[in-house]
């Protein structure tokens, strides 16, 4: 604050602070509070609002745990679901799948991005790095919907991928790619890759190369140098990349809409259905808060497990 005052003077500082406060309060917190309040009220015809039926209740939340059905569970990478020997509420099935595949997305994205980030930060000739980054960023200039849609076309049953594979004789008949969670996971990884890559790149880049060499010099293999020196140093970057990708994936609506099938629904689709198809904002809000709270708790839990502090991520 002092720093801001010194740098920009009183007028500008107060404008900054006021704008930030406005954004936080009016555009973020108030609508959320409104939805939170709505989520505890019933979806009623206009005439009943404010009447005796309009009470605070947990009914909207409870509805997520209703309608038990046979659970077709999709194991990661499977092309067919397995039938679990017990029933579960239909929305809970979707909820669990969403959390599971957001996690799978995050883990795969991390595995893909760490080596690339390391290569860009420490191996590649620094002169070529800007060019490589442009190559990575250009696809991101295209909007998320187009990128997801492109994959929707490519992976379609009668799409170019199947056509090419069949014509080359690699497969005999077209494969139904968009089924289960493989295509969604793939799409999410593709769309959110950079949110993982950039923080990890930044973190690794800030590591003094001499430390890597010191480890090598003391006899460490590349593996151990990564494990003991580079990864601990880049943990905040890795953590913020993971949090971002996980949250974005769990909250994504476009990618699942395009790349998931009827058998592999995403929880955001359920929220959307409630809000826009049934016009039931109350239930929709309740589901949205369930997702938000669960994801937040999950992320905090994971941060505990991997001993990452919130202040590390904000760095």
């Amino acid at each position: 604050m002092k720093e801001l005052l010194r740098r920009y003077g009183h007028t500008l500082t107060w404008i900054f602070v006021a704008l930030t406060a406005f954004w936080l309060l009016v555009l973020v917190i108030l609508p959320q509070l409104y939805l939170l309040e709505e989520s505890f009220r019933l979806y009623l015809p206009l005439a009943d609002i404010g009447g005796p039926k309009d009470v605070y209740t947990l009914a909207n939340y409870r509805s997520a745990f209703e309608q038990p059905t046979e659970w077709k569970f999709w194991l990661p990478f499977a092309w067919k679901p397995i039938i679990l020997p017990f029933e579960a509420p239909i929305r809970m099935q979707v909820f669990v799948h969403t959390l599971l595949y957001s996690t799978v997305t995050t883990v795969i994205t991390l595995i893909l991005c760490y080596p690339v980030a390391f290569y860009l930060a420490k191996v590649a000739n620094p002169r070529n790095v800007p060019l490589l980054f442009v190559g990575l960023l250009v696809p991101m200039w295209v909007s998320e919907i187009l990128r997801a849609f492109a994959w929707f076309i490519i992976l379609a049953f009668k799409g170019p991928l199947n056509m090419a594979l069949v014509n080359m004789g690699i497969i005999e008949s077209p494969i139904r790619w968009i089924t289960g969670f493989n295509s969604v996971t793939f799409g999410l990884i593709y769309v959110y890759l950079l949110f993982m890559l950039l923080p990890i790149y930044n973190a690794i880049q800030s590591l003094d190369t001499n430390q890597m060499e010191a480890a090598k010099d003391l006899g460490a293999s590349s593996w151990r140098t990564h494990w003991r020196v580079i990864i601990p140093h880049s943990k905040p970057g890795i953590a913020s990349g993971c949090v971002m990708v996980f949250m974005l994936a769990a909250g994504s609506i476009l990618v699942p809409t395009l790349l998931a099938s009827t058998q592999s629904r995403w929880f955001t689709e359920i929220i959307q259905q409630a809000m826009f198809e049934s016009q039931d904002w109350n239930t929709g809000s309740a589901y949205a808060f369930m997702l938000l709270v669960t994801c937040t708790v999950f992320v905090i839990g994971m941060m505990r497990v991997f001993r990452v502090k919130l202040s590390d991520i904000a760095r």
Partner: protein
Amino acid sequence: MSAGVDLQNVSCDFGSFRAVDKANVSIKPGEFFSFLGPSGCGKTTILRMVSGFIDPSEGQIKIGGQDMNGIRPNKRPTALIFQNLALFPLMPVWENISFGLEVRGASREARRAKAEELLKLVDLHDSADKAISQLSGGQKQRVAIARALAVEPSVMLLDEPLSALDLKLRQHMRAELRAIQKRTKVTFIYITHDQGEALAMSDRVAVMSQGKVQQISTPQDIYNAPVNGFVASFVGENNIFKGKVKSIDGGKCSFETDAGTFTATLGPSVDANTIARIYVRPEYSRLQAAPAEGGNSIPVTVTDISFEGNFIHVHAADKTGRHVTVETRNDGSVTLPAIGSAQYLCFDAASARVLADQGMKDPGIDE
């Protein structure tokens, strides 16, 4: 356990730039050997080639007689102390020190014990569990030394390890490093741009300039018998006169300058009738009221006297304005001349060396 290091015709090119040019250096087991030279002359590059982080463009490096070609840094019997130390900030002191043992699969107890032992060796008790950020500059220095010693290297490589310390601590650590080297009997290869450090600590010194090794000798010889103008002017101060060798008589020569003709000791690779320079150390120069009989005398005017404590520097200028310095000990044995007085700068032939300009970055200095 220590090993010798041999550099045979070692060069290193970065693109078209030659950072090290045909270095031939033979370092004996257990020796404290320094590379001395100005910043950018290729010292670090030599060290990085010995430790294996850079491959020589040509030539061979042998450690303990074994060719190091193709052997990665983690398999070499060397330990490098980095210019910025490169301690691991996320590990406590003892894990830093025992990192090399962890790599070799030692048990936690063994590592801890070794770390404690080394902490005692470098005179840093009770710091095993401290974080690196809690240490002072000198303590970090000791941890870096301990970390390198932990892997029991045959050769320790030190890249200007004292440059970040303040003067007092630097002088203290000089003695300490030397003592550790004597105790462990490990070969030390030490890099510095500080001539005082190199002369005070080393068994032998290699003076480098622009990628070339200029002279390899004991500190005494480097200072007293430099082989060329670069070594003479990089190590210590000189009064310098440019001129021409007129005649040679054994180890002496007659040297003609615009300030007069002098008799001086002939340095290596200077021939008759070549242009060269005569170098006289300030402490071998004297000022007297009358010219020395049959000796080397130049009329000068005293311009300034600076008192350095144990030494007194008398500055003077000859008739062309050339600046000369005479150093006397502050022991009351010499009466100082008055500023502005006319004096003669005198020196003996034995303490004046005629040297070629070879190795100089800018042969035009002091024209």
